[in-house]
């Protein structure tokens, strides 16, 4: 048997052994596209009336914590995500903004808080979030209510350094710049894009 054949057999054996021994733990979390007919009517009617004539993509998110439904759409080049529970009750509305869109006082308070947390940091992604009654959110989205008069929250992904180590966190800040939650960002495996 020549050397190449031996290595070939070795590679096949390695493949087989790994396929048998690999019993990775699965954290059940899945998001997939669904059709509007599979979405509760109350959710569809809310989105259709708040965002008239704008194409909408609907997604179902299932995890160990339950199910939720999300509508995604682009309005004025801004990506909106409208989240509902499984019954179609509105949970929140999020859309991407830049740091310059934040109220100055809020941004200053957030920067100050992050400045104490990290030696250096960068705001990687900011989403404004509205939670509240269906009626209020509808009013804001359709311009019947002044959004500046309604309290917003800000979901911010931050890359920073702590003790020389680069870390990523996702924060939720109130409109006064108070930190409400901090979750480390867990990146999905990138092996198939790197090697």
């Amino acid at each position, binding site marked *: 048997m020549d*050397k190449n054949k031996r290595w070939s057999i070795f590679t096949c054996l390695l493949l087989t052994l790994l396929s048998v021994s690999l019993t990775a733990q699965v954290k059940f979390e899945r998001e997939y596209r669904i059709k509007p007919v599979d979405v509760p009517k109350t959710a569809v009617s809310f989105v259709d009336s708040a965002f008239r004539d704008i194409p909408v993509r609907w997604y179902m998110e299932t995890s160990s914590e339950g199910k939720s439904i999300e509508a995604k759409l682009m309005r004025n080049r801004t990506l909106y995500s409208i989240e509902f529970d499984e019954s179609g009750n509105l949970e929140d509305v999020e859309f991407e903004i830049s740091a310059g869109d934040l109220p100055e006082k809020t941004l200053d308070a957030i920067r100050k808080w992050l400045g104490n947390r990290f030696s250096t940091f960068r705001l990687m992604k900011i989403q404004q979030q509205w939670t509240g009654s269906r009626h209020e959110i509808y009013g804001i989205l359709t311009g019947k209510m002044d959004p500046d008069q309604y309290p917003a929250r800000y979901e911010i992904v931050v890359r920073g350094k702590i003790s020389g180590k680069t870390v990523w966190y996702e924060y939720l800040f109130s409109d006064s710049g108070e930190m409400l939650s901090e979750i480390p960002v867990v990146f999905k495996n990138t092996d198939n894009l*790197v090697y």
Partner: protein
Amino acid sequence: MTKRLLILILVLAAVMSSIAQESYRTGILPQVNLNMKLSDNWRLVLRAESRQVVASGLFGDPFEFGYDNNLTDLALLTSRRISGTQNFTFGYQMRLAGEKPIHRTIQQYSLVSVHNSFRLGHRFAADQTFEPEETAEYRFRYRISFETALSGQSVDPGEFYFKVNQEQLHGFSGGEYDLELRLAPALGFEFTDNNKLEAGFDNRFSSFLNGSLRSSFWLTIGWFISI
């Protein structure tokens, strides 16, 4: 970005099909990537790839099958994560293709950017190949990878995804330069975040700068495991 990538792929496919003459090889390229965590930032990667040629010849000649277990590559790489999305990797690869092994040293920097419905991987690499009684070859490579879920906005366990790699390799050996282009679309399946299987086609075109195009078309099967 997606549109630009598609246009690039179409242009490359058109260029390649128009110059698809002269010699070719075709076969199977099975590959296993085993990635082991050493610490928070350090990883060890074992990669095994085999090249099984099932046919080769000149375009225009009658097609003839002829199996040849062409070569096997075994690589041991060390990877240092410098942020959540960036890595430096270096290592050694041994190619078993004849009586004596061929040695290759590898260095690479990679960056992955995550977008709302796709991920882009950028790989900048250099390698040096040392073969007994042959002139050393030095290559500089850049590969861009595009990955998108076929269901939903991100790839989740139990879902299929589409991936395409486009790579250019600039090779220098004995004062001569050659450019190789690769285009590799693949269909992937994610069993878990740390266990993915991909199958696709890897189309490689080289030596077209000096007018003697060499093409190779491989059926690829890649398995990416992280433990």
